[in-house]
Each structure stands twice: as C-alpha cells, then as structure tokens.
C-alpha cells in the first residue's frame, strides 16, 4: 500500500462523523468601508496614504516624498523591465502597482499576478507604492473574498503595510525582507 493510500485509509477510519459547515452570515458586523477607516489602520501599520485624482500625479508625489529614488518601475509599463531575470529587480528602489481591493478592517490590499507581472516584484523592491481606486475599499475580509471569487491566476497576495519584524525583543522594525515602506495612493 502506498503512503498516500495508507494515510487516506487511516484518516477515513479515524475521522469523526461529518458535521455541516456553519453559515458565514453576520460575521462582518457593522465594520465601516470608508477611506477614513482604511487610512487609520494603514497608518497604524506604518504605511502612508495620499489621495489623488489622476494616476499621472504619482511620479511627482513620489519624487517629492522619496527624493533619492534611482530606479522606479511601473507594473503597468512592463516593456521596460518584465523581460529581465527577476533577480535583477533587486536594485528596484520603488515599484508602483495597482491594487484590486482594499480592506478597511486591516489595511490589506489584494493583488494578483495580473497586477504585478512578476511575482517577486512587490517583495524584492526597496519601497512599494499601490494605487487603489477609492470605490474599491471594502469593510472586511469576508467582503474581499466575496468580491475576489474564484482564483483567476496562479498567485495572489494580500499586502498590509511594509514588511516588518519584532523578533528582537519585540521591538518593531520596518523593512525585514520585503519593502521597507508602503505608500498607498487612493484614486478618486
């Protein structure tokens, strides 16, 4: 008997009587789906937020708030960089991507391969900027999974704030292995 058959047989023999799945109704409560609520949580995670009315405002705002950027890549303009070996993205100072959904309760933004072109991009860049349409801010994770639905790509991720660690004496340090900072541009 293969290991697979052995494990499945043992599980079948030992598993308890099947019970029904619970309803997920009423879990979301009255959490707000507002920009204010989203901003408050994002800032508590160490992220920053700017409101814009046109995506064309992004480069100017970036050079204003990050004066020392040398290499900036825009996920929407893949001709520039997407052909490179992903390891070469190590010298990207700032990556700018567009997010699909934002979650007010925890600051997370949903991105898939379609938004980032190369999977490692939002992790390997030194700083990350996400453009998020204002009407795409939802209240809770339940709303997010309802909107996202079935997977369309091979990889998707919720990103909530900059990479961080508190492994040394519980002192919070931003910039562990991923982006050292996260700026969200809310587009309305």
């Amino acid at each position, binding site marked *: 008997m293969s290991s697979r058959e052995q494990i499945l047989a043992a*599980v079948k023999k030992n598993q308890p009587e099947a019970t029904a799945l619970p309803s997920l109704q009423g879990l979301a409560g009255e959490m707000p789906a507002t920009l204010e609520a989203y901003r408050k949580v994002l800032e508590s995670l160490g992220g920053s937020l700017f409101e814009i009315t046109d995506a064309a405002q992004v480069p100017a705002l970036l050079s204003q708030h990050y004066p020392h950027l040398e290499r900036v890549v825009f996920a929407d303009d893949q001709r520039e960089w997407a052909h490179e070996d992903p390891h070469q993205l190590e010298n990207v100072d700032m990556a700018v991507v567009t997010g699909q959904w934002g979650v007010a309760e925890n600051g997370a933004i949903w991105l898939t391969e379609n938004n980032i072109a190369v999977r490692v991009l939002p992790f390997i860049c030194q700083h990350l900027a996400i453009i998020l349409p204002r009407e795409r801010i939802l209240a809770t994770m339940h709303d997010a999974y309802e909107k996202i639905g079935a*997977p369309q790509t091979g990889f998707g991720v919720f*990103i*909530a704030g900059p990479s961080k660690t508190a492994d040394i004496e*519980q002192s919070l340090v931003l910039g562990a292995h991923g982006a050292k900072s996260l700026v969200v541009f809310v587009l309305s």
Partner: protein
Amino acid sequence: MNRPTTDHATLADKFNENEPRVNWHDETLWWVRAKRDRQAWSIPEWELLRETASQIKLNVLGNLHDYLTQFEQQALQNGAVVHWAVDAAEHNRIVTDILQRHGVKRMVKSKSMLTEECHLNPHLEAHGIDVIDTDLGERIVQLAKEPPSHIVLPCIHKKKEEIGELFHEHLGTPAGNADPQFLTAAARQHLRKEFLQSKAAITGVNFAVAETGEMVVCTNEGNADMGAHLADVHIACMGIEKIIPERRHLGVFLRLLARSATGQPITTYSSHFRKPAAGKELHIVIVDNGRSRQLGREDFRNSLKCIRCGACMNTCPVYRRSGGHSYHTAVAGPIGSILAPNLDMKDYADLPFASTLCGSCSNVCPVKIDIHQQLYKWRQVLVQEGHTSGMKTAGMKMMNAVLSKPGNYKKAGKMGRWVLRAFPGMVNNRFNPWYKQREMPAPPAQSFSEWYAQQQSTKK
C-alpha cells in the same frame, strides 16, 4: 529523533535560575497577550468568529478524507507535484530527494513548525545540504544552535545583547551593537544574498484550500515570498490538518490568526500560492506523522483544529515562567503539551502536568480547542498507561487513601498541623516543591470541623 535529556520541571528550574530574566520573559509575553485582547475587543463579532472557525475545523475533521483527495486533485490540475509522507522520516526523504535531483547544496527555508517537528534541518545537513532559516527569529536561533522557543516568536527567550553578540560573530557586525533596527538591517542584507542565490525554497503552509488546491502562507517579513518566487523549486510542507474547505473560509481564519498571534489586524503578507510560475516547480508534501492517530482519539482530536497562532503560550502562566525550551518539543506551551503525547507518550509524559489547568489557553484559542480539559484527560491516560513517575503514583495513592476516608482525613489533618508547629523544618526545606519561592503558611490551631463543632457548642 531528539530524546529528552530531562523533564519539564527540571528544565524550568534551570530557566528560573535567573529571576530578572524570567520576569522579563513573563512580562513580554503578557504584553503580546494584551495586544491580542485589544484586537479581539475591537471586533464585536469576535466570539461568533471563534465559534465559526471552530465549526469549520470540526467539519474538516469529519470530512478530512474527501477534502484531502479534493485538494490533491485540484493541486495536480494546478500543475503542482503532490507527495504523501506517513511519518517524519518519509517527509525528510522526499524533501532530500527533490533537492538532490536538482543538485541543490544550499537553500532557504521560511518558518515551518512541521519541518521542526520532523527535524528536517539536521537530516539535510547530514546529506550535505545547508539550510538557511530566513525568518529573522529563526535565523537567530539557528546561529545560536538552538531550537525555536515559541512557534510565532522563535527567539523570544533571547536578549538583544546576545543577538548583537551572535551577529558580531557570524555576520561581522560591530561588537557591542545591540540596536534592533541596526541588527535587522544587517540580517536583511545577509539574507538577501541567500535569497538571490537559492535554487530551492521550503515554506510551511498556514491554510490549504480543498476547493482550489491553493496554499496560503502568512508572514510579516516577506521571507516566504522572497524565497519561493526567486527559487526554481518551491517545496511546501503541510500537515494533513491544514486543510480548509473553501476559499471564502479564509476570510474567517485570516481575521483570527494574526489578531490572536501578535495582536495585529493581519500579517503583512497573506500569499496564495496556486500554480507554479512558468518554468518552475511546485512540490507539496502532505504529512501525517501521527495526525491520523490523533484524529481517532475522541478526547484529543480537537487539538488538530490548531492554526498555530501561539495565543495559548502567550497567556499561559507556566509557559511565561518556564520558557519554550522547557517543553523539549517543537511546539511548546499548552497546545504542544496536548499534541506531543500523541507522538510519544513516554517521552512527553511530563508535559500535560506542566499546567495549572487555569483554562486561560482555552479562553483565548481562536478555534476554541478545549486545551485545559485535554491536558487533564491526558494526565489520566498517562497515569493509566503507566507513563508517570513512581513518586507521582505513590503520592496519588496516598492522597486517595487520605481524601476518600473522612476518618483518615481528620487524623492526617491533625497530624499535619502538629508537625508544622513542632517541626517546621520538616516542610520548610528544599525537598518540598511547595516551599520553593514561598514561605509555608502558619498552621491553624484547629480544623474547620473542630471550629464548627466548637461554635455549635458555645451557641447552646
């Protein structure tokens, strides 16, 4: 396998030799518990969420066979290679084979308590493969040649000065620099080199979705993603109990996990791995290692609901004051103490006794595992199976003789009070564990029964 050199009480004694450090450990973990409370209280539906999560996991246990085959089928359709391992040895063999086939000599690993449980690192090293742990806390304990002492906060037992010393020795940072910001930046540089050179990456799995065949991995640091996306081969190792039925159930678990673990609303990254990227390989190793046996133990199967948040450790008065290493098992604390006896009753017979049964663990558990009740039930099983020490059995027999007969109880009480008064040295000595760190109370002049009888007679 690592055999325990000694039991929890002895190891806890050692940890307690440095009192200021124990107090610091205790307070740090309680601070994390308090952060968890603030997050939990900010969500009015928190208790409903816990109950729902618990019920989803119960449904998983009752349908595990079908969910596992559904997950496998979906994962295969997604282009992943699925492996099944009956035990730790087979898991280690499978991982080694994959790495050897690709000629990998050095590779990165993000946090996986399963690979700790299976002792994968020493196995790979014996086969000439260097493993670099990439979670900062895990890298620190790896450099110190120690196991993690906590499943979420692996080096919570270490002071920053010790970490500075380790980094000075291994990473060449200036001696005496113990600034967390500086040390983290040094680790970032050191580990970026490893990520960029690694052809293979191992990750754990937080949730495996039967419906879609995808796996969700949660980190704050981004180390799982840096490893998995840069490597040609991604090996994801998961226990059979990591399955959840549908994608929408992730909403429930991702709301609970980080809030319970560290008091954050969610981890920085919640990555959904479904298909290997073009030209790359994704291997999933599904491991039993005693879990199907635990599934058959009616009193203990709920322990398989665990999502490894560590809340039970942060709240446990015994864990906070004895340290993770005193549990001499990969998963320490209350949850580890109900999981470990399933792996080896003899080696871990001491763990269910390393608890006050106060119930705080069960109160904070996000999937409502009845941890303290299981600890109590394990004690009964372990005594019946003869795995407890002769001293404990003799003591229990004596207590039984005294407490089950009122006459004996009265006599023993009288004798005890007399001994305490006449020969205080007989109990106030280092052989009495109750005397440690406390003065024994002054013996009362009479028992309650005697006092009551006296009151009744004076009333007349």
